[in-house]
């Protein structure tokens, strides 16, 4: 498959994520949208890695094939940690406000 399809899918996922973050007020949905953007980037990393792997195989740089894919695992691990912190914040938000609406957070302003 051509690379453009991967880029297109990643772009679509990323834009969906941005629009979701910007438009929704439910913090859980915003959180999911952020994950969506992260995964769009992960997808791109893997796709480009595969694309370059074909041309790099015959050369003396074997790690080009695997670098980006290992990088993606790191991102997923960090994202998992981030999710645990983020969900904890949302739980605290719910306990304090009985809602997960981010607009309640403007009380932090002052």
């Amino acid at each position: 498959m051509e690379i453009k399809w991967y880029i297109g899918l990643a772009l679509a996922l990323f834009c969906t994520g941005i629009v979701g973050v910007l438009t929704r007020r439910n913090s859980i949905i915003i959180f999911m949208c952020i994950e969506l953007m992260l995964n769009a980037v992960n997808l791109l990393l893997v796709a480009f890695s595969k694309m370059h792997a074909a041309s790099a195989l015959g050369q003396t740089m074997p790690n080009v094939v695997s670098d980006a894919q290992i990088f993606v695992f790191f991102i997923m691990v960090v994202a998992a940690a981030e999710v645990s912190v983020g969900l904890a914040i949302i739980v605290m938000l719910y306990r304090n406000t009985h809602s997960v609406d981010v607009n309640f957070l403007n009380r932090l302003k002052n």
Partner: protein
Amino acid sequence: MNNVLQMVWLIPVVPLLGFLIVGLGRNYMPKIMTGVFASGTILLAFLISLYVFFNVKSGNTHVAHYFDFINVAALKIGFDFQVDQLTSVFLLIITGVGFLIHVYSTAYMQEEEQKDFNRYFAYLNLFVFSMLLLVLGGNYVIMFIGWEGVGLCSYLLIGYWFKNTSYNNAAKKAFVMNRIGDLGFLLAVFWLIAKVGSVDFHTVFETVPTLFASGKITIVDITGITLLLFVGAMGKSAQIPLYTWLPDAMAGPTPVSALIHAATMVTAGIYMIARSNILYTMAPVSQAVVAIVGLTTAILAATIALKQNDIKKVLAYSTVSQLGYMFLALGVGAYTGAVFHVMTHAFFKALLFLGAGSVIHAMSGEQDIRNMGGLKKYMSITHITFLLACLAIAGMPPFSGFFSKDEILAAAYARSPLLWVVGVGGAVMTAFYMFRLYAMTFLGKFRGTTEQEHHLHESPALITIPLIVLAILAVIGGWIGIPEIFMHGGHRLEAFLAPVFAQSNALTEKHHLSHTTEYMLMGISVGAALVALIFAWSKFNKYQKTTGEETGLGKILANKWYVDELYDTLIVKPVMAISKYFNDIFEKKGIDGFVNGVGKAVNYSSRQIRLLQSGQVGAYVLMMVLGILIFFIIQLFL
């Protein structure tokens, strides 16, 4: 170190040490210790001056170089002292009269608090130090240091009672007027450096005639330099148009007036011109200006003195008038006469001021002579010494003033009989106002309050002894300059000073008046002065207080020709108006507006920007995304 005169630096250093010790210890030193110490430093300086004088008298003159003061490229100005006949005469006047004034002050200022008493003596020592530096300086720059020093000290001492606003204003007036003159002095020094490349007295006076002969400097340069120097002298020595500070300087304690008028400060201008005599001799235009300004001042001040009622004001205007005579002498080339008159004037004017101080002391601060009278029987020593001083200043033979004034008038006659006529007019007025002052103060009936009458007493010995010493000097001081016609070789001062004025004397032909003319001139001036004296004596002998206002010319004279008012309208008010304009418009609207505007702009914009921080998470995210997009656009397309 092969010359004993190498140690002249001690003369100014001793009073400087006195100033430092008394000034720094002003909170701790008891009055008696300050008095002895401060007077002692001046006495020591006087003794060294005497030693120097006898050295100079035996023909030993000296230029001492201590260290380089300014050293830039071709211009080298050393910290030099020059000791010659002229210097030694001034050294004796300054330290001698200065010492007597110090002694007098210890009694006169006794009622001051310890701190103020010590402050007063510290300033007094600094004053003497500055004046000594002025006359000892071996070039114009060192002279200028002393020149500024006396200006500063006069400010400090005139404003000694600084809690009184009008005294402070008088001090400021003296300082500002002196600054105007100092500007002229500075410009002259710069001109000299540009044209001659040196400010050393001996270099300048030796090279200027040769440079002039070879056409390197023109008559315009010399005239300009001398006129600018004269502007400096106008300020320091209170000549028209910068004389109004001197009468106001009466705000200071009376001994300070004596110091300013007799020993220091006002004689600086005379000294400077006498020192630069060769330059003036080469510039006839400047000489004429000096003579005319001097004579005009002499007459103007004398007319004002006729109608003053403050004992110190009369003396102040008489000083201005006598200084005018000295400038007249300088202007007609009678340099010796000018120095001679400085000396005799120092004696009798110091005596007059100290006598006036004694009177004011006895009258518990009263200065108006209309409220005095009949003091003769209460204060015999003050009375006698004051009378002697009045006779001396009126030019009665054989008192000192006669010889010096006669010499000046004779020299004026030789230059132009018109100068002589006007000069005699001034001398007549001098005799009149001095004896008006004398008669109103000491003769007749006492016109003050009974309380004052009870208080009247002769002053203590520390006041009367300086009076007696000065009275002796005022009587015999003139005998070192007896004119040729009375005694051959009688003018010892002229012979003594001859080396200083040798260059000038070589350039001018001697005017020889015939003996009959000289006797006649003398007779007329003394006779006219005597008539004025007797007239004043008889008129004010039985003076009664009247309440009537002065009218006509008398009113103009009593108001000092309205010169202060004229200056006020012409200079002070416009300057004030400009200052007010700059204060109101430029300062408040311009500078303050700009400074405050910066603050207001920051304040306003931060208030607007603060609104962005709404607390809406969505808005923050939107901004973040927009920011990223802008970065992308810049990165990709620009």
